[in-house]
């Protein structure tokens, strides 16, 4: 509790994620350099940057899919350490959506959504199914609950993955390039779902190159390059008046086509 308070001047109930002086190495490769970041509850963050700049590494440190070596990460008042109990409780509060969906192919759509709530939250099967159907409806996957992931299109699979994460009723949602593996015609259906979530006030940290999405919903855009945060700001200033040369060159490339 003490660490949380000292991590920020604001009350812990307001702060969702704090990263202070975070460094991470893969072997000798320095993947994250002195990352300082604070995300308030209800805030929508878009993280962008060239490929290999450490965006995935950064958000994967938030739910300990990757281990950081230096610095503190506090998520929803819980410090991320080796303590497996802490990690488990952080993971059940943080939903994650992956580039490749990672739905469980041997389970139906409904079973995909029911698995974690029944195992981790220990809610009854009936209750879990009700929640699952509620969220499947919300991501507009009608009548597909008893199909297997392989029978759905990429866009549908990604929306199921979002519903699966939401079924744990997480306080924070992480997205790692959720539309990068999708055909262009399916990108919009996934982005629409995400915009809807954003408009409901879900705390989101989203790695994406969809700058339209960033302009529409982000409270802050963060630009990363070579493992460090180069620049951050509200979308208006970020896009219209970028400070750093690296940001300008990145935006030139990404908005160019």
């Amino acid at each position, binding site marked *: 509790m003490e660490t949380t308070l000292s991590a920020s001047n604001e009350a812990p109930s307001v702060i969702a994620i704090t990263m202070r002086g975070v460094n991470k190495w893969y072997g000798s490769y320095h993947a994250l350099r002195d990352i300082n970041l604070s995300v308030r509850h209800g805030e929508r963050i878009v993280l962008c940057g060239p490929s290999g700049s450490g965006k995935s590494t950064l958000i994967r440190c938030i739910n300990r899919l990757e281990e950081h070596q230096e610095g503190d990460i506090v998520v929803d008042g819980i410090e991320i350490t080796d303590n497996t109990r802490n990690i*488990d409780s952080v*993971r059940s509060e943080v939903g994650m959506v*992956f580039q490749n969906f990672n739905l*469980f192919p*041997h389970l139906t759509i409904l079973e995909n959504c029911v*698995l*974690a709530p029944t*195992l*981790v939250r220990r809610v009854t099967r009936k209750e879990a199914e009700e929640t699952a159907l509620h969220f499947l409806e919300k991501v507009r996957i009608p009548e597909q609950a008893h199909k297997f992931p392989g029978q759905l299109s990429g866009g549908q699979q990604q929306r199921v*993955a979002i519903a699966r994460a939401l079924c744990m009723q997480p306080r924070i949602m992480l997205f790692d390039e959720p539309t990068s593996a999708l055909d262009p015609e399916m990108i919009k259906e996934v982005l629409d779902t995400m915009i809807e979530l954003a408009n409901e006030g879900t705390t989101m940290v989203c790695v994406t190159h969809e700058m339209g999405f960033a302009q529409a919903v982000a409270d802050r855009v963060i630009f990363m390059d070579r493992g460090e945060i180069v620049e951050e700001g509200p979308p208006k200033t970020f896009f219209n008046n970028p400070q750093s040369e690296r940001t300008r060159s990145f935006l030139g490339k990404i908005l160019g086509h």
Partner: protein
Amino acid sequence: MTVITSQIRPNAKAGGAREWLRKSFFGNWFDACLSIVLLFISLKLGWSFLQWALLNAVWTPNAPELCGAGGACWSVISTRWRLIFFGLYPADEQWRAALACLIIVAAVVMTCIPRFFTLKGILMIWGVSFPSFLLLMGGGYFGLSPVPTERWSGLPLTLYIYASTILLGMPSAILIALGRRSPYPAIRIILGLVVDLVRSLPLLTILFSFSLVIPLFLPAQLTFDKVYRVIIGFTLFFACYQSEVIRGGLQSVASGQEEAARALGLNYFQRMGHVVLPQALRNTMPMTINQFVVTFKDTSFIVVVGLFELLAAAKSAYGVPEWSAYSKEVYVFIALIYFVFSYSMSKYGKYLELKMKASSAR
């Protein structure tokens, strides 16, 4: 897409088979001659076997004097089939042994029904059938007279050792395969060494060490029945091979699967039990069934350590003067029993493989 393939395939197949036959057997005059000679030889052999096995065979029980006229003497089977199947098991109680065998076979068949493929299903089936088998064979309760394991023999003994090996071996194989991905290097290295050691030894050496050598070094109070020592040796052998199969299956599961499970907050056992292992086991089902078939055939090795299993019982069936000339018949009969078990298992494996291909192409 599907329309096109389904239109082309049947024609291509029918034409293809004839074409293939013509090309591979009658491509030039030398091939044609060779094919005709081989065809002639196999027809001749087939006909002689048919004459021996059926046309000139003697079936009457208790009539060794009728045999010897060039046909098979199946009377050795019709006279001594009880000895072959049940060996030394008390004659009045052999219905128990027969029923016990039927229970095991029924349990195997039920396990093969995809609806029971869950852990719960398998535990239920074997949790009921295996104790029933032991109760029927061993007796001592419900008015069944006790029969010590030394008298268990023939087919029930073979099935007992086989079922125990699989039931103990599968969980061990899973644990070994998981252990070899442990974050602790000591566990990984030790398990790796054990698996490699066992896999580089012939089964016979392992059976001999477990049944004969190890008891020499153990204090008398610690030695237990030979059947159990053989089961332990067999289980070790099976588990080491099967763990490699499962390890391959674990590697075939995309790393994103475990990551997604982890991100949802599932702990290690939940991730393995609900996400990774079901996929790994499903992916390796055909290989696993192959391993089951091989292990079944390997049970015939038990004869060398002096247990009275199916093969040993068969030997004793022709081990009396009046039948001693008819070992051929007994071995053909035993081969048939092994064939029925092994062939139906591998056919089932093939069926599963096709079914899996169909569902992954979905």
